């Protein structure tokens, strides 16, 4: 019988005995974007709620998809509770999200929080994203507290994406995105959108000077 020989890539995942003790202390889940990880000190905190807020076109969705893709690449089970049903599967695939591994829950804004709590209650989810989109959350403070407690109990990272920071949420970290600047290649009728530059600022827990610029690249020759 042929013996199974692990590849070097697999060997990189093996944990040495001296690291085993500190393994569970890796309390951050990478966002998939180096600049963002640097701002957050490693990524989205596990067992806590992170916030990502910004106006239309500021790059919230790009960072959300990057975070989901990075978590799935690391073998985590992830869920997206989508209050507007705004997920574009093609954009998600381009961002590296394997769709078959994403639990997508389309819930109205009123039920989104309850749905996120349900997902967290299952346990074992590495990242649960709650995308409120353009809606302004009217959820009572008690609901946000329940969500925070569920995240703490299950050790999952919860990411709330919204136009503005939710009142009463008081997430462990929060990033604010400011209006972006699009880049078009070509002139007039031949113009094509190629990228959007966005600025990340006003992060909770960061110094007042902490900012990061991101270049969100559009895949060439692709509609939508």
């Amino acid at each position: 019988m042929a013996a199974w020989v692990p590849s070097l890539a697999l060997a990189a995942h093996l944990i040495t005995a001296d690291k085993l003790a500190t393994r569970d202390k890796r309390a951050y889940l990478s966002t998939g974007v180096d600049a963002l990880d640097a701002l957050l000190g490693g990524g989205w905190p596990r067992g806590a709620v992170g916030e990502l807020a910004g106006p239309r076109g500021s790059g919230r969705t790009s960072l959300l998809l990057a975070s989901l893709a990075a978590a799935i690449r690391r073998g985590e089970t992830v869920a997206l509770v989508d209050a507007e049903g705004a997920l574009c599967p093609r954009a998600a695939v381009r961002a590296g999200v394997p769709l078959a591994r994403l639990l997508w829950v389309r819930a109205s804004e009123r039920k989104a929080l309850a749905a996120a709590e349900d997902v967290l209650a299952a346990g074992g989810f590495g990242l649960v994203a709650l995308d409120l989109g353009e809606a302004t959350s009217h959820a009572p403070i008690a609901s946000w507290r329940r969500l925070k407690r569920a995240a703490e109990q299950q050790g999952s990272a919860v990411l709330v994406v919204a136009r503005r920071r939710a009142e009463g949420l008081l997430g462990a970290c929060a990033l604010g995105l400011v209006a972006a600047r699009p880049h078009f290649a070509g002139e007039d009728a031949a113009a094509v959108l190629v990228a959007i530059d966005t600025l990340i600022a006003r992060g909770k827990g960061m110094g007042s000077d902490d900012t990061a610029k991101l270049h969100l690249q559009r895949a060439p020759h692709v509609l939508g």
Partner: protein
Amino acid sequence: MRIACVYGPALALQAVLRRDGARKESEDAIALAAGPGERAKVLALTAAAHRAGVRRGMTVGQARAVASGRLATSLRVVLTAPADTAAARAALCDVGYAFAPRIETEGERVFFDVGDLARLHADDRAAAQAIVARAARVGLAVRVAVAASKGVARAAAQAHDVAVVPAGGESAFLANLPVATALRTFGDTSESVELGERLRHWGIGTLGALAGLPPGEIQLRLGPPGARLLRLAAGRDDEPFLPSLPPDALEEGTELDYPIHEIEPLSFVLRALFDRALDRLACRGLACAGVTLRLKLDPRGFDVRDLPLAAPTREAKTLIEHLRLDLARRPPGAPVVGASILMLPARVRGVELDFFRPAGPAPEKLAATLAHLAALVGAENVGAPAEVDTYREEAVDVRPFPIATPNPPADLARAATDDPARALAPALGFRRFRPPHPVEVLMDRGGPTALRGPQIAARILVAAGPYRSSGEWWHGDGFSRDHWDVHASDGAVYRLHQDRRDACWYIDGYYD
């Protein structure tokens, strides 16, 4: 071969008690009757009712009169409920399927082969006791006998709560069995009654006494029933064992004494049905993959509804909530006087944990969560998103989320190498409006110059396009669109399209 006979005496009465949740029926004086009003005939009764003087065949009026002076409380009379009896019979079958892949059913009895249970239980008696315990879990009191043949097991179960007939010792075991008891296993036919009477006149009271008579003379004087009884007395039984596979779906039902108008009391009734059905599924190590609910309406008609589940579950709470939400969305058109559920069984598969990856949700817990989410937001809104093979940009499909995700080593190897380019410049995302929002657009020769719609009113700074797309004309509901990417004065880059068939404008979404 060792055959077990599981006998549920007075199953119709047990069915009603099971419905009402009264497991210790012997403590109460209860009579089961069928027929109209006080002239209804008593068909079955509990031991307490028997001690009070009530007998089978009495009218309800007679039974009440006889029992009135002897009972501290009045005699409780319940009417037969065919749906409950059918459910109890099915539950009895499930007890059999908990121990064997195939069983044979016969009225209030089931038969199955327990020869292979020797590996799980110390001996036949331990196996029989396990069967009794399993039946108690689904609310049934049964008698169990294990023997080398069906007829002997049937006769032994008629006389004993738990009996094990040793192989080769059948005639000795049955020697003390009264003829009247053995004849009850032949059914309440006039032939059996006549045979019993004749043997009583001859002074033959037990099977042991009968076995000593010459077979030829018995055949001549008592005919085939007598010969059959004689073969049973001698421990010779050539009745074939004809087992069958379990049915695809599992049914539980009940009929109500009064019509129910509101969802809340109806959900109490349904909760009991779900509990019983899930207990039965648990007997077979299965979970529920889907439910069909059939409500009997007053005065006539039925309300039938299917409840698809995102994943198999064993949680009654999840199922009942799913059902309650469905009933709230589409209430029955008339009061409900009966309910039955048909459950689709499915196996919940375990998952082996991976040494290299984080442990995901436990499969059963994830299944329950998916079912709960489906109850909350609708099954069509829970799952894994999927692209659709079409040029229609807004198309999306939702597929069942895999409970157990395969984790081949190759997958992990890919995961181990993050794309460095992606980490520096993530892909541009897109938020889609579903359905696309209609907008007003001002055009000049160069393209769109302004747009106005719900929550949007902006000048257009840069317009890129048009990009033409069309398709599905072969289906009859085709599309033909001119798409534009426009940088609006509110800072966002929207994607618009103009429907070339009616010239209307829509916003597909925005780059974000």
